[in-house]
């Protein structure tokens, strides 16, 4: 990447990760990672298994605490904030292993995601009457709208647990979108999906970007990554080895080595 590119990226970075370190005991899962996610992009984070992709996402969303470095989101520091505060700032996420509230209905799951944007406090919520009822109704309408957006309005009343896998993923995406995030973190959204479901997902991801939400995506399906991403960051052993547009990444020798070389050496 040229230095002019670097400056341009840094100037418009919605999410700027600098020198991020995360250790588990003696293992350094993320090692001095730098990454800039530009506003409006679909940004993919790829790398071999164990390269630290999910750990990076988990540190950004405060599921884990960073051991060093900074995570700036829209100019403010995220490292050290509790998870709910990060969600409120506009960073939402989905999970590699789907984490819906199985006993709640589909629409209630989406409503939970929405509540960070609601205003009635906990005393207000206990008082029956106007504000609570109105907010509840608005939240429910918004949740139905999002379910329509992801194509699941017809199962709004079903319990989340009863849905097929691919649909559960889309409920998770709707729940994440309900908070009106500026940055949406997706951890392997296509995992376990058949090709038809993956195609639907690609369309969905593009329309999410068109709504103005920036996406940071971890994915193993390279066809999906190459077709939706504006920029790609490649990790290996917790370190940044390349960043650029899909075409650049596809012919980057370090990336080819990381993906193929290790395998060939080991064989």
């Amino acid at each position, binding site marked *: 990447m040229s230095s002019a590119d670097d400056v341009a990226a840094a100037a418009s970075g919605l999410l700027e990760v600098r020198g991020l370190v995360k250790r588990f005991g003696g293992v350094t899962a993320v090692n001095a990672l730098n990454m800039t996610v530009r506003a409006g992009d679909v940004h993919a984070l790829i790398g071999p298994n164990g390269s630290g992709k999910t750990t990076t996402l988990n540190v950004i969303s405060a599921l884990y605490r960073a051991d060093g470095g900074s995570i700036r989101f829209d100019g403010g520091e995220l490292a050290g904030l509790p*998870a709910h505060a990060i969600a409120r700032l506009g960073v939402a996420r989905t999970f590699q292993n789907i984490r819906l509230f199985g006993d*709640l209905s589909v629409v209630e799951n989406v409503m*939970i995601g929405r509540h960070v944007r609601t205003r009635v406090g906990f005393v207000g919520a206990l008082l029956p009457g106007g504000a609570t009822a109105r907010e509840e109704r608005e939240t429910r309408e918004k949740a139905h709208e999002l379910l329509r957006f992801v194509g699941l309005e017809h199962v709004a009343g079903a319990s989340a647990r009863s849905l097929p896998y691919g649909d559960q993923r889309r409920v998770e995406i709707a*729940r994440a979108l309900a908070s009106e995030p500026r940055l949406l973190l997706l951890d392997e959204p296509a995992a376990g999906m058949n090709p038809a479901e993956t195609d639907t997902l690609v369309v969905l991801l593009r329309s999410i970007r068109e709504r103005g939400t920036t996406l940071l995506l971890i994915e193993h399906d390279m066809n999906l990554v190459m077709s939706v991403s504006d920029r790609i960051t490649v990790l290996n052993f917790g370190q940044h080895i390349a960043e650029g547009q899909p075409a650049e990444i596809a012919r980057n020798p370090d990336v080819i080595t990381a993906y193929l070389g290790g395998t060939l050496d080991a064989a």
Partner: protein
Amino acid sequence: MHFDPVANMQLLVSGLAFGSIYALVALGFVLIYNAVGVVNFAQGEFVMFPSYIAVTFLLPAITVFGTVVHWQLPIVGVYLLVLVLMVGFGLLFNRIAYHPLRDRGWMPVVISTIGVSIFLRNAAQMIWGSQPIVMPSLFAVDTISVGPLHIRPQDLLIIGVTAVLIAFQFFLFERTTLGKQMRATAQDRATARLVGVRVGRIVAITFVYSALLGTISGLLVAPLFTVTKEMGALIALKAFAASIVGGFGSIPGAIVGGLAIGVIETFGGFYISSAYVDAIAFIILISVLLVRPQGLFGERVAEKA
């Protein structure tokens, strides 16, 4: 055995009243268990302590710290005062007994709740002495006649208030964002936090709500018995049995389990022997555990064990 429909009807009302108390206290157990994964062994003191505070302001004269005081206030005002004080108590309990230990696993929290229970019983004895105290009720008469039935108005009040609280709780959980956050927190705290639920606040609200359920139980049941430092323990023990009978962690289970134990022990006390009243709850508990170990409404016993 002589079968008397009038007596049976009276027993049913009385049994439902006691069952309602068990159900309210059992709900307190279940809500806290669902929110923080720990059984709160001070739940009985959530019933006992507010009852003592209430009698302090309900009686024309009462001994506090060895001094006779005359702090009598109107009964409705006292109820409100006690409820407000117990909101503070719930917040304090969360802050002192749970919050500092929340990341240490369940055992330290259990010990902590046992500690609070012992502390409050001894504090009650120090403050109010060891003599049982009679709490006045809202009603001037002990029983009213409804047709051939003689019914305690206090029983009807207990059943009515419990029905309203259960309806309120249904509204809270199904129709408010706060309730959905409470359910989400109960199911998966980590994910709830990641989607923006302020889990610490939801837990604090849960402690307050459980304290208020205990308080209301105490204010309702104390006029039928006396206020003693042990009054909460037996109620809580039966409520605990009720929540296991219902399937621990299940809200409908806590309600049905509480009502069932109240009704069965009342009939058992009448038809078998009143000496065995307190044993009946545990006979029911053991029978249910033998036949259906997960409880009436329980599903995943392995996870709850």
